[in-house]
């Protein structure tokens, strides 16, 4: 159904567990594979898109992203009756010198006020809330985006970035779409996981990390996306690592590997490279190679 192209999404639940570093390393390992696994990359963490810092891509194309809409009141027509504010559930309408004004940040774009205004003084305006980019990187094409701070609709932007990645993969007959996912479990994560053949959960063995890993696994489970777990910074809290391993065993979730805490990862980040490219012999790099081997096995097993 998808011409044999596989889609792998990297998630975590908790922020800061190392998704982006792992994604960049996998991108490098895919291109260094023998034979090379051709990939298209998508950075689905549109709020805080960091993947480009490790891939140093060349931007080929950029487009404005229209995220949604916000209400706008024509002051001249406004009577100050307040019917709009009475129906607004997002606290986006405030009175100022006798007329009402919309707070575009609080406005959800529901247009309830538009239909309520007796003077028809309110219209909806499309908002340009960010940009998306098509770039070229060392390891393959990269689609990424930047949502302007305080903006909404990251789910839609995630979907757009992924769709472009997928279409390009289909056009160029690439093997794998590699998606760097956002933290959390809400709309942007659901959008990022949608359509994936496999999710790799990068878990951190801290108490908080284990707690959030469970929630993101429940999310991928709910949406029927098979998941593997790899434990990052595994030696920081051995008790946590044991807990994760036991949880995975109990729930029939395959462990993709354990990556030790390794200062080489930060050094590589400062240099703007994946750790596997910068320090191929470091403990983290060797562990990542093992994770990649596991992923290849599972991706090849999955029915199309």
């Amino acid at each position: 159904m998808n011409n044999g192209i596989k889609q792998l999404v990297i998630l975590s639940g908790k922020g800061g567990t190392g998704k982006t570093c792992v994604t960049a390393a996998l991108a490098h390992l895919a291109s260094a594979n023998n034979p090379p696994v051709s990939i298209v990359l998508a950075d689905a963490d549109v709020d805080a898109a960091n993947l480009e810092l490790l891939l140093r891509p060349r931007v080929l194309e950029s487009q404005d992203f229209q995220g949604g809409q916000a209400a706008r009141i024509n002051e001249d027509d406004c009577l100050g009756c307040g019917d709009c504010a009475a129906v607004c559930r997002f606290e986006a309408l405030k009175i100022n010198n006798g007329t009402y004004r919309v707070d575009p940040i609080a406005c959800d774009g529901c247009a309830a006020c538009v239909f309520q205004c007796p003077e028809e003084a309110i219209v909806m305006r499309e908002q340009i809330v960010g940009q998306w980019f098509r770039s070229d990187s060392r390891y393959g094409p990269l689609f990424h985006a930047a949502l302007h701070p305080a903006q909404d609709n990251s789910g839609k932007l995630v979907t757009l970035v992924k769709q472009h990645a997928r279409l390009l993969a289909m056009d160029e007959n690439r093997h794998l779409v590699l998606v760097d996912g956002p933290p959390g479990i809400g709309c942007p994560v659901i959008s990022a996981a949608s359509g994936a053949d496999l999710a790799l959960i990068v878990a951190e063995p801290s108490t908080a990390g284990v707690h959030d890993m469970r929630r993101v696994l429940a999310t991928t489970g709910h949406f029927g996306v098979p998941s593997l777990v790899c434990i990052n910074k595994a030696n920081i809290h051995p008790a946590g690592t044991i807990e994760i391993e036991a949880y995975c065993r109990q729930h029939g979730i395959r462990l993709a590997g354990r990556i030790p805490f390794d200062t080489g990862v930060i050094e590589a980040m400062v240099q703007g490279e994946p750790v596997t490219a910068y320090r191929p012999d470091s403990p983290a790099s060797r562990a990542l190679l093992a994770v990649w081997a596991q992923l290849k096995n599972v991706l090849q097993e999955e029915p199309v």
Partner: protein
Amino acid sequence: MIIAVASGKGGTGKTTVAASLALAISAAPITFLDCDVEAPNAHLYLEPELMLHKDVGLLIPKVDQQLCTACGRCAEVCQYHAIVVLAEKALVFPELCHGCGSCTLNCPEDAIREVPKVVGELEAGPAVSGINFARGTLNVSEPMAAPVIRQLKNWQPFPESAIVIRDVPPGTSCPVVESILGADFVLLVTEPTPFGLHDLRLAAQLARSLGLPAGVVVNRDGIGDSRVDEFCRKAGLPVLMRIPMERRIAECLARGRPLVKSYPEYLPRFQELYTRIQSLAAANGSEVTLAQIELGS
């Protein structure tokens, strides 16, 4: 005084800093709100006894098909395409619905009433050191965190505290904005790495666009490089505290122990942090920012 502890990037230590700050000044009445409703973690550090509970309901339309004439007005007004009219029936898609109430208001036959759909829950109770603790949790598979955060902020299960500390989710979009709206100060926790810098820039822009004073805590100081410090200097963002990278600290936090409990030498440092925040917030309060003028408040 409401302090929002945010970061942009995940995993920099927001919850660590927010919890330690709360513990350090817990002699005063404080309320701690864990607004990271997708992945709430603060309870691990503050160990609240969550005795109060409230469901978070999003009002979803329910159409009385007997009264419905399939006129299509509801589908016309719905901006999210969560209600469509097909084959003479109005069909509702709850997970697309934002609970705005517009379809209900505009149905000419009054055929729609709203029914709460539970999308999350709020919990509250006393935590260690007399801290009033409340948090929101988004149910797995629910897409929207913002309504849960909004209701958490409005809940007020405790008598009003002079100081409220909000643990904000990572990122810079809707849930983060909702968590920060109404705060007096944004405390940005960062790490001195390229990722930390990149996301700090965005978070600082966010604080600025909301018209709020901000300050920075540099966590894991010593790893990475000096670009975060350079950025803060150029942007006029005061660095209010530094926590060095130390393996023993990382391990203590991984175990779920608050920093100030394992290393009490940090208590006065967090108290000092609060004092600095107080004076920065007070200084800002005297100017009316552009954002406030725009909104007429």
